[in-house]
C-alpha cells in the first residue's frame, strides 16, 4: 500500500480519526505522517494540554535554578510532578496539597487567583460554610464601623460571637 498523501513511499502509519462520529482512515508514510501531526497540533483540543504543560514547565525551569531537582511523588496516587507536567492532569485530590507550592503560581497564571470563593459543599463543608459566613459578617461589621453605625455593628459582632462559639472557638 502506498502513502495516501505523496503516493510514492510505502504507507507504514495508519491513522483512524473519529470526528463527530465520522470515521476517517488514512494510510501514510512516516514523512507525510510527520506533516500530518504538525497540522494536528494546530487543533485547539490538542493545544490546551500542551499549553498547560508549558505553563507547568515554566514553573519547574525557574525552580530548578534555585532548588536541586526533587523527584517527589504524591503519597496517594504515586504520580510525580514531572508526570503531571507531561499530561497536564493531576492524579488525585491529594496532588493539590502535595504539590501545592508548585501549583500555586500556575493557578495564579491561569485564573488570576489562588483562592476559591464559590460554592461550598452542603454536607461536608459545614464548618467551612460557617467560617465563610463569619468572614462576610466581619467585612460587613467593618463597613458599618466606618459609617459610624455602631449599634448595627454591635449586633453583627454578637452574631459573629455566637457563630464562633458554635465552631468551638
Amino acid at each position, binding site marked *: 500500500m502506498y502513502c495516501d498523501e505523496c503516493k510514492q513511499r510505502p504507507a507504514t502509519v495508519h491513522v483512524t480519526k*473519529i*470526528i*463527530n*462520529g*465520522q470515521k476517517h482512515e488514512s494510510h501514510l508514510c512516516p514523512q507525510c505522517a510527520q506533516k500530518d501531526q504538525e497540522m494536528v497540533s494546530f*487543533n*485547539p*483540543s*490538542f493545544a*490546551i494540554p500542551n499549553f*498547560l504543560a508549558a505553563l507547568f514547565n515554566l514553573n519547574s525551569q525557574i525552580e530548578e535554578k534555585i532548588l536541586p531537582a526533587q523527584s517527589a511523588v504524591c503519597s*496517594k*496516587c504515586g*504520580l510525580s510532578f514531572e508526570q503531571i507536567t507531561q*499530561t*497536564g*492532569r*493531576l*492524579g*488525585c*485530590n491529594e496532588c*493539590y*496539597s502535595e504539590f501545592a507550592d508548585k*501549583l500555586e503560581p*500556575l*493557578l495564579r497564571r*491561569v*485564573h*488570576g*487567583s*489562588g*483562592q*476559591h*470563593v*464559590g*460554592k*461550598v*459543599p*452542603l*454536607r*461536608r*463543608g459545614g464548618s*467551612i460554610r460557617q467560617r465563610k459566613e463569619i468572614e462576610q459578617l466581619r467585612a460587613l461589621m467593618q463597613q458599618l464601623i466606618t459609617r459610624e453605625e455602631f449599634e448595627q455593628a454591635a449586633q453583627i459582632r454578637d452574631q459573629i460571637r455566637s457563630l464562633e462559639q458554635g465552631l468551638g472557638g
Partner: protein
Amino acid sequence: MGMEEILRTTASRWMEGTGNFSDVVISCRIRLARNLEGYPFPNALSETQAKQVIKEVEDAITKVPKEMGAFQFATLDDVSPLERFVLVEKHLISPQHAENPIGRAVVIKEDQSASIMVNEEDHLRIQCLLPGLNLENAWQEASQIDDMLEGSLDIAYGEKSGYLTACPTNVGTGLRASAMVHLPALVLTNQASRVLGLLPQLGLAVRGLYGEGSEAMGNLFQVSNQVTLGKTEEDILANLSAVTRQIVDKEKEARQVLLEDAREQVEDRVWRAYGLLSNARLISGQEALALLSDLRLGMDLGILSHPSPEVFSELIVITSPAHLQFFTGREMSAAARDMERAKLIRSRLS
C-alpha cells in the same frame, strides 16, 4: 422510560426554541466538574476502581427524590458505539466520553435537560442544557443535582482550591458555563471575528458546535468562561450573560443593517436555502448546516413564516451522521447518508 426511549426521543428540552433572546441564543449549558475523595482521578484510575466509582454513583442516583425527575443510568460499554454517538449529537455526552467507553457511565434525566458523565476527565461531570439564555436556571438545576449527589458521595474539596479537578483549568468552582449563539448576520457582514476576537480579553473562550476542538459550522458558536477559580459562580454567570447579551445586540444590529441595506440579497439567500433544502436529493452535513443557518435567519427576520425554530434545532441534530444511521437502523456510507439526510429535510419542510 429506558435508555432506548431516550435515544429515540429526538425532542430535547434545549431544542424548544424558547427562552431569553432565543432568536440568537439557541441554548445554554452549565457543566460542573466533581470528583470523589476516595479515588484517584479517572486518568489514574484502575479498572476495578472505575467500577467502584460507577457503583457509588449508581447507588447515589437511586436515592434521588422523585420530584427531582427521573434519571436513567447506563454503563457506556452497554451502549453500542452508534448509540454513544447519538448521545454526543444530542449534546448529552462529550465525544471523548463516547470514544473511550471502558470504565465509564452516563446518567441522563428523562427530559434530556440534564446528564452526568461518570469517569470522563473527572469522576462526575454534571451537565444542564436549556433553551435560550437561561444560565441562572441551568446553574440552579445543576447545583441541585450536585447537592443531591453530595448527600451520599464524599466530594473532593479543599478550602483554598475549592472543588478539586483533574485539570487545573477547572479547579475551584468546576464550573464551565456556555451559551450557543447563532450569528449569521455578524458572519455575513464580516464582523464575527472582530466581535468574537474580543472575548479572550474578557476571560471567555469561543468554540464550535461540538465544544473543544470543533470547528464553527452553521454560524453557530459556543461562548464559555475560562476562569473557574477566584470568582463566585454568580459572578461567572453574570459576566457570561452580560457579554452574551452584548453579542446578541451586535447580531441584531447587523441583522437590521442587512434588512435595510441589502434586503433583496438577504431574501434571495434565504429563499435559495429554502429551495435547496426542500428539493435537494443529496446533501452533505456541512451544506445542510450552512443552509439551515440561512433558513433560521429567514425565520428570525420574518422572511419565512415556517418552519418553527424548533425544527431548526431538531434538524441539526437528526441529520447528524449517528442519528441518521440510528433511525434507519443500518450503517451507511457518506453517500447514502447524504441521500437520507436530504430526504429527511424535505419531509420536515413540506
